[in-house]
């Protein structure tokens, strides 16, 4: 993975000192609230319902074991012993004090980490595929390009005060595990007819109040032109994005208002000015960054192992293997997903002890690296098949091996009213209700892949619009109600869910889900047809009927 140069290190060290002084000036009354707010947000610090919340950047979701141990240490020392992984593959701490944040940032800098631009109206952490570099389907490892974008966007002086936050996701091939079509910019590595590598560029996707699927602005931007093209988009947005209404300030609104053709014309016009400028990437730079992401030294002998015997002998292990591990591009290896969706615990939460443990397991079995996923789980990407059984046993002993990846209980859930000051409704209790309802039902495994996403308000941090089933908390006269959507997806076939009907009361959410799932089982044309495919084929009506028809 990428290792800091002296410049990278100096930048984060000086940034810590700068923020320490900003905090001091704020506490001394020299910095107005509103101004400090913008400055602390650019260092990841929110003030939440109960306490400040600090969001630490995990660039494109990749961490070393040393870094994860540091995150554990911070959870133990400055927080209540846990952290929370987000859909932007960052980690959040819910209980640090405002005064301790400079010290936390200094600790992070010791392991080449920071909280720069994890919030605020600036370019946020770039995300990518958690299986980058290890899945056979990709054209190239997207992570070097993510690192190139990280450097260009970090403390970029021109784009620190954008109209609104700005999110970029990069995928390495046709599969989309990064929800790239609902990002301000989605970049897909593609090859043109001449066999050159470049990017298809989408712009103006996003969720929130006005969900939109990104539109193609260019079918092919050569890799050397990556930064000039991004800079052209950002400049047009910075100059023309709306600043009078924060709900209309995202780039999707600008693209929608101008139309993608006009927006493209403006970007191309600006791009023509800078395309051949100093910002054009050089081969040397691309190669230098790629040099940090060379594949592991895979062991050709890893194919000889006793995996089949273990799978045959232990049914629990086999269930976990089938659900929580994924094909690796190298024979004899497997990608392991560490489930952060245990029974009755908040999605994405992890204790300091579990973090230390996963760091140890990464050292022992997976090259010392860990990835965070968009779905709020962790990944050990390079595990030998012969090590899976031992790894599974340790994970299972530590509540990290619930065999639910891609199933109903692998929900994306935002923190909701329990933590978030913007929330309309609670989410964690509803997630528990769903877990309780479905923990014992035998048809759950029959249902196969299904994505349930839940948000506590229309800001949509839980990405409910792109859940196969989306759940949105709404406030009705002081009571929590939940609106359901069906048919969303954030993958290559991205789509926005459609509203099922009127909201249901809090105690009816799991029952409603059950009705939807039973309807699906009844209607699917074969066991191969997924929930999403069935919804797309038959439409919403039969599902509406099952939920809203008066009981006979």
């Amino acid at each position: 993975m990428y290792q800091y140069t002296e410049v990278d290190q100096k930048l984060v060290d000086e940034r810590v000192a700068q923020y320490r002084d900003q905090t001091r000036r704020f506490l001394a009354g020299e910095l107005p609230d509103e101004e400090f707010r913008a400055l602390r947000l650019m260092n990841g610090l929110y003030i939440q319902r109960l306490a400040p919340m600090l969001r630490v950047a995990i660039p494109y979701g990749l961490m070393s074991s040393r870094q994860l141990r540091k995150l554990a240490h911070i959870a133990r020392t400055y927080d209540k012993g846990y952290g929370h992984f987000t859909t932007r593959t960052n980690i959040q701490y819910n209980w640090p004090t405002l005064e301790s944040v400079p010290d936390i940032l200094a600790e992070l800098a010791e392991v080449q980490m920071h909280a720069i631009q994890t919030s605020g109206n600036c370019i946020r952490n770039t995300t990518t595929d958690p299986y980058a570099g290890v899945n056979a389907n990709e054209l190239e490892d997207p992570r070097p390009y993510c690192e190139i974008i990280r450097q260009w966007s970090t403390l970029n002086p021109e784009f620190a005060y954008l109209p609104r936050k700005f999110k970029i996701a990069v995928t390495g091939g046709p599969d989309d595990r990064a929800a790239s079509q609902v990002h301000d910019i989605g970049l897909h590595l593609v090859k043109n007819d001449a066999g050159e590598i470049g990017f298809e560029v989408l712009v103006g996707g996003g969720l929130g109040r006005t969900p939109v699927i990104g539109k193609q602005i260019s079918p092919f931007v050569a890799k050397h032109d990556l930064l000039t093209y991004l800079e052209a988009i950002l400049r047009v947005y910075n100059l023309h994005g709306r600043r009078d209404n924060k709900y209309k300030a995202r780039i999707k609104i600008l693209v929608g208002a101008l139309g993608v053709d006009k927006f493209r014309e403006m970007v191309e016009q600006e791009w023509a000015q800078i395309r051949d400028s100093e910002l054009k990437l050089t081969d040397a730079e691309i190669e230098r960054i790629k040099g940090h992401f060379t594949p592991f030294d895979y062991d050709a002998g890893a194919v000889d192992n006793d995996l089949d015997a273990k799978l045959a002998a232990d049914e629990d292990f086999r269930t976990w293997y089938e659900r929580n591990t994924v094909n690796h591009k190298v024979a004899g290896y497997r990608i392991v997903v560490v489930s952060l969706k245990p029974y009755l615990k908040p999605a994405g939460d992890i204790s300091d002890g579990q973090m230390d443990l996963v760091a140890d397991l990464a050292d022992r079995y997976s090259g010392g690296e860990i990835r965070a996923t968009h779905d709020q789980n962790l990944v050990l990407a390079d595990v030998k098949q012969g090590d899976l059984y031992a790894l599974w046993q340790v994970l299972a002993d530590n509540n990290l091996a619930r065999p639910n990846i891609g199933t109903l209980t692998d929900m994306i859930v935002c923190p909701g009213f329990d933590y978030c000051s913007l929330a309309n409704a609670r989410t964690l209790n509803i997630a528990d209700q769903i877990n309780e309802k479905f923990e014992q039902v035998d048809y759950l495994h029959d249902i196969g892949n299904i994505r349930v996403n839940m948000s506590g308000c229309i800001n949509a941090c839980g990405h409910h619009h792109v859940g196969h089933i989306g759940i949105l908390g709404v406030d009705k006269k002081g009571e929590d109600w939940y609106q359901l959507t069906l048919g969303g997806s954030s993958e290559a076939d991205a789509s926005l869910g459609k509203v099922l009907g009127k909201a249901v009361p809090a105690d009816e959410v799991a029952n409603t889900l059950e009705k939807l799932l039973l309807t699906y089982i009844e209607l699917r044309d074969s066991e191969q047809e997924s929930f999403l495919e069935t919804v797309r084929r038959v439409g919403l009506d039969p599902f509406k009927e099952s939920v809203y028809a008066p009981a006979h």
Partner: protein
Amino acid sequence: MPLLINRQLVDQDPWLRVEDEQALPADGALLLPLARYLDQKDQLAGRQLGVLINGDDDINSVIAEIDKLQLVAIEIPAFTDGRGFSFARLLRRAGFNGQVRAIGDVSRDRLEFMERCGFDAYDIPDDRFKPEIIEAFDEISVDYQGAADDPRPLFRR
């Protein structure tokens, strides 16, 4: 109002800011709103001229005039309004060598980014000024991007 030019505090500002309705002084350097400048520039040829713009103005109409201008003052209506950063960059990219001044909601924690984008002068409200403000320019001594003084990003240096 304290004025910083090239990181120095200066006590004399030669520029006279003239609003739309005000009569033009007979001599001295004139800072005019963009519309008035465009309207009267022919009569004013030969004088020291500057324009005052804000985020809603079309930067290209200013760029078209840069060989006649010695000052472009960019009004920052609120510190969160980042359009001025792009304006400064575009002016410098077009080859403008005169003064680019930030006025309005200008305070310490944006000075370094402003300078990198091409500003070289800052009108700082009295209540936001302290002599230590000068230190803000050196808080972060390294960067990845090209800037007004050196267009090369780190990877070309």
